[in-house]
């Protein structure tokens, strides 16, 4: 029993990070219809910038906030320089642009930082909590709390604030949104910045446990994308649940079946879910205009 609980804990810890990446995906997807394959690079930038600022003597909390702001600027630059000029391009073209951007950012990181693995100390020490015979690291609690806090924050933002509603209006119908006086370009910039900041936060939270290097982004992006799709692309609640599910599936497969195939398990489940529910678990079915 304690074994199951242990796998459960490690599953939701990793799942929390996948959720954060998935939330980042859907914020950009909702406002612009772009699946941003450079999302994993935001996570990497968040972790790496914190490491280098911290090693330069900046206190950890300030380094983390600065790293999130830096990544936020990179996200905005990505929108302004690569996504906005490509307005109206097809899905495949946009996918390739963002993949190009991710390769570019990785190349820059390799140059500006280095190719080594890095970490910084956990926020509240490394003594694990003992719950029901299983353990969880304090940093794991930080990760789970981070994912839930971001989800609640986004929920409040999109449901109650005027700006949040404007972002949703932009995603729903760009022309109509512009007609009622919403600056759709502004909303896209905002969502790229927000999404980059959430990605960077994930990077800051996960680095003390999994370490970071210039190329950690791509694996996280694939898992986060899978999680977002599993939850039904576009729904924040779906992204949260999708991420946790992918984390749990991986942990259970690694624990009970084979650790070599843990990455395969989540994709098998995703394929199975998509065969039965082509729009994901929480996705709305789409209606085509003919």
């Amino acid at each position, binding site marked *: 029993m304690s074994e199951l609980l242990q796998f459960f804990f490690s599953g939701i810890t990793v799942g929390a990070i996948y959720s954060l990446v998935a939330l980042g995906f859907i914020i950009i997807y909702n406002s612009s219809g772009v699946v941003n394959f450079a999302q994993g690079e935001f996570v990497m930038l968040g972790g790496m910038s914190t490491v280098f600022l911290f090693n330069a003597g900046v206190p950890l909390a300030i380094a983390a906030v600065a790293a999130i702001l830096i990544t936020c600027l990179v996200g905005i630059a990505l929108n302004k320089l690569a996504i906005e000029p490509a307005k109206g391009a097809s899905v495949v073209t946009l*996918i390739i642009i963002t993949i*190009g951007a991710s390769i570019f950012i990785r190349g820059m990181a390799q140059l500006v930082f280095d190719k080594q693995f890095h970490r910084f100390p956990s926020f509240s020490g490394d003594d694990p909590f003992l719950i029901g015979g299983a353990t969880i690291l304090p940093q794991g609690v930080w990760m789970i709390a981070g994912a839930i806090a971001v989800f609640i924050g986004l929920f409040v933002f999109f449901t109650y604030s005027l700006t949040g509603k404007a972002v949703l209006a932009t995603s729903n119908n760009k022309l109509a949104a512009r007609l009622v006086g919403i600056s759709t370009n502004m909303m896209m910039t905002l969502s790229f910045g927000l999404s980059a900041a959430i990605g960077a936060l994930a990077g800051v939270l996960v680095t003390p446990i999994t370490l970071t290097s210039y190329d950690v982004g791509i694996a996280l992006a694939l898992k986060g994308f899978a999680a977002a799709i599993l939850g039904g692309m576009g729904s924040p609640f779906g992204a949260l649940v999708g991420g946790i599910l992918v984390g749990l599936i991986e942990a259970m497969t690694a624990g009970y079946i084979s650790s070599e*195939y843990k990455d395969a398990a989540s994709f098998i489940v995703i394929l199975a879910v998509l065969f039965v529910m082509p729009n994901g678990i929480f996705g709305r079915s789409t209606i*085509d205009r*003919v």
Partner: protein
Amino acid sequence: MKLTKLSPKILTLLALALLVIIAPMFFPSSFYYRIGALIFINGLAVIGLVILVGYAGQISLGHAGFVGIGAYSCALAPEHLGISPVLAVFLGAFLSGLLAWLVGRPILRLRGHYLAVATLGFGILIYMVLSNEAQWTGGPDGMAVQATGLKALLKSMGFKVSASEMWYWIAAVVMMIGALIALNLHTSPTGRALRSLHDSEVAAGTVGVNVANYKLSAFVISAIYTSVSGSELALMNRFISPDVAGFLHSVELLTMTVLGGAATVFGAVIGAAILTSLPQVLTVLHDFEHIVLGLIMMLVMIFMREGLVPSLAKILRRRPK
């Protein structure tokens, strides 16, 4: 000009044939034959993707999986089944086609990003099997591939060629055959049906095109193309590792397809040529390799959305005569 009276099909084939024949005249060393062969091998896979992406308007982020199947068929079948490596190419193509046919129907019901993630997952599964079943495939370290015996055969007939030169011509001929089939398909009733899917699946369905069947056939055909290219790669390199089936290789193939111009066979070969030779050129730049590659991908896609070949053709046509 008389040239413009020739059909685009003949024009494309002529241009490709000229490219294949003239290029070796500028090769300073046999190393360049190898690059040329790699370009044609990738070109074959990309022509397959043109049928799926350019004609039928579907997307695949997992096609490198079929490269893997083709490659490992040529590595495993001679060893365990005792058939010749050349026959194993057909076995690989058959297996890839069969697998594509089996998974294609449920996968191709999905659209856009859902299709992207389903094909992505499919490719990753193949990659995981290849790198985890080490007792068969040698795991991530890869495995050696038996010689085809073609070179020895040529030698016994009195032709002395280097392996690189031989593969240059083999890959060129196979790619030309692939290009011919793809070009014939373009104007055939099947090709027209596929292209109607690209514009609107609903419209295609209402005029009687069996949408599911045609999508499936495009998927199977492109899988076979890609598989054959994987087999060629394994036989030429005499070594294979699971990386050829990885996500990055899928992305590379898709980028080649779109970079040159997703809807044209000629564009496919140009895309393959650029992205295959670019890393060789960029090694000079060492640390800047990724930066330049990423920049090129972004700039071409932003400013030449239809790909290099169609965009340049448009500019040339617009120029006053």
